[in-house]
């Protein structure tokens, strides 16, 4: 018997223990995930990403509080990911420090995870952990990534709605047009909006959005008033243009507006059909990843260590290139 019935009946200790089994990728954990799968797919998954120190944890704390204090409180699960040491595999997971307002509320469940070698801003098992919360009946799952720089964009695949949090002083407009993290934002948040530089940050983000979604505007150039008309084709009404919102998470400023935007985005996804499209894309990419890993593990299990070491030795001597090594291993021939 698996943990599934206990999870579905709301047993918190069973939930916590299952999360460990899923995180450690045990056979028991996998079996329970199988059983819970049909019960998942209802929660609104919200990702929160951004650079270290931009205030992600404080913001998650405030968003969760807001949903808990609503007229119809939602049950909120939080998955907070912090990095593992590449040298020792250890980790200090400190996101709970900013979430003490949520203590004692049975409608909230916070789980910290270490990345355990994953590089995309999440841990390998984050999707599984999120699925467990979803099946356990949480209405919202807030997923906080590691402090992300430019390329940690796995969250956009997992979440329905992705918040990218910036603090003033993030850099100029060139940073804002680089590919990567800003592209995945469904909602852009300028946190610490009381710090100097908030106007500059907003201008940089706006200019990035204008490049993607041109609108009519009037501006001054060398003292002359110039106007730009909107492109002839009306913007697709199904298109979601990321709003730029200002917050001061430590004081709870701007949170009501942010939560409203999160709800509007969910509504938009459902109306436009993007909800199911994203769901499909996510399940497909998860399947892809699992298939790749399973095949690699199966192949490796059928390969004697001595043979593997032999190829690595040849790589080290540079008598074999990496691609030749792969071909040789797959063909099972002597290199």
């Amino acid at each position, binding site marked *: 018997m698996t943990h599934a019935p206990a999870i579905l009946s709301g047993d918190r200790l069973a939930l916590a223990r299952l999360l460990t089994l899923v995180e450690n990728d045990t056979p028991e954990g996998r079996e329970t995930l199988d059983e819970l799968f049909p019960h998942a797919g209802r929660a609104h998954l919200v990702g929160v990403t951004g650079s270290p120190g931009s205030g992600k944890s404080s913001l998650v704390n405030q968003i969760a509080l807001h949903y808990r204090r609503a007229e119809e409180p939602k049950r909120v699960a939080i998955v907070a990911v912090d990095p593992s040491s590449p040298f020792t595999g250890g980790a200090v997971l400190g996101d709970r420090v900013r979430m003490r307002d949520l203590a004692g509320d049975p409608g909230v469940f916070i789980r910290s995870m*270490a990345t355990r070698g994953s590089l995309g801003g999440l841990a390998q098992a984050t999707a599984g952990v999120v699925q467990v919360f979803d099946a356990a009946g949480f209405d919202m799952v807030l997923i906080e990534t590691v402090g992300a720089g430019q390329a940690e964009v796995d969250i956009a695949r997992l979440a329905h709605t992705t918040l990218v949090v910036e603090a003033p002083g993030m850099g100029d407009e060139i940073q804002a047009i680089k590919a990567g993290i800003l592209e995945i934002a469904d909602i852009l948040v300028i946190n610490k909006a009381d710090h100097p530089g908030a106007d500059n940050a907003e201008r940089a983000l706006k200019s990035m959005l204008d490049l993607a979604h041109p609108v009519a505007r009037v501006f001054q150039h060398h003292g002359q008033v110039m106007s730009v008309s909107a492109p002839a084709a009306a913007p697709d009404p199904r298109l979601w243009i990321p709003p730029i919102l200002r917050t001061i998470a430590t004081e709870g400023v701007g949170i009501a507006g942010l939560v409203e935007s999160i709800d509007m985005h969910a509504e938009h996804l459902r109306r436009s059909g993007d909800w199911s499209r994203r769901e499909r894309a996510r399940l497909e990419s998860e399947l892809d990843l699992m298939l790749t890993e399973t095949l690699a593990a199966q192949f490796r299990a059928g390969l004697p260590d001595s043979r593997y070491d032999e190829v690595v030795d040849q790589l080290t001597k540079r008598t074999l290139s990496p691609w030749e090594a792969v071909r040789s291993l797959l063909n099972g021939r002597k290199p």
Partner: protein
Amino acid sequence: MAERKIRVLVAKPGLDGHDRGAKVVARALRDAGMEVIYTGLRQTPEMIAEAALQEDVDVVGLSVLSGAHMALVPRVLELLKANGQEKVRVFIGGIIPDEDVPELKKMGVSGIYGPGAPTEQIINDVRAAVKA
């Protein structure tokens, strides 16, 4: 299957604001390859037990320098037990008078460390307690 990581909750119950010791221990356990959930200052026993449950930790480390350990520690132990987490090992660090040590051990505390305790000893004790 991935190796089983030791998960440790490091918490500071009570009202004193000195968390340097807790941070030193958190860092040392991290460097020993453990996953340390750090909760910060001024935690109530209820908050600590709740965090220990949600994080499904193997070990709880409490840092108490206020002198209130004889009130706080039994309460944490009691709540862990009430939550079904009687297997969680509890360690204490801080300023603990020698005469309180036997009483705390009797309650079920696995290890007690004062100022200057070598972090290697804490690491080894935690590993041994989790294995047992």
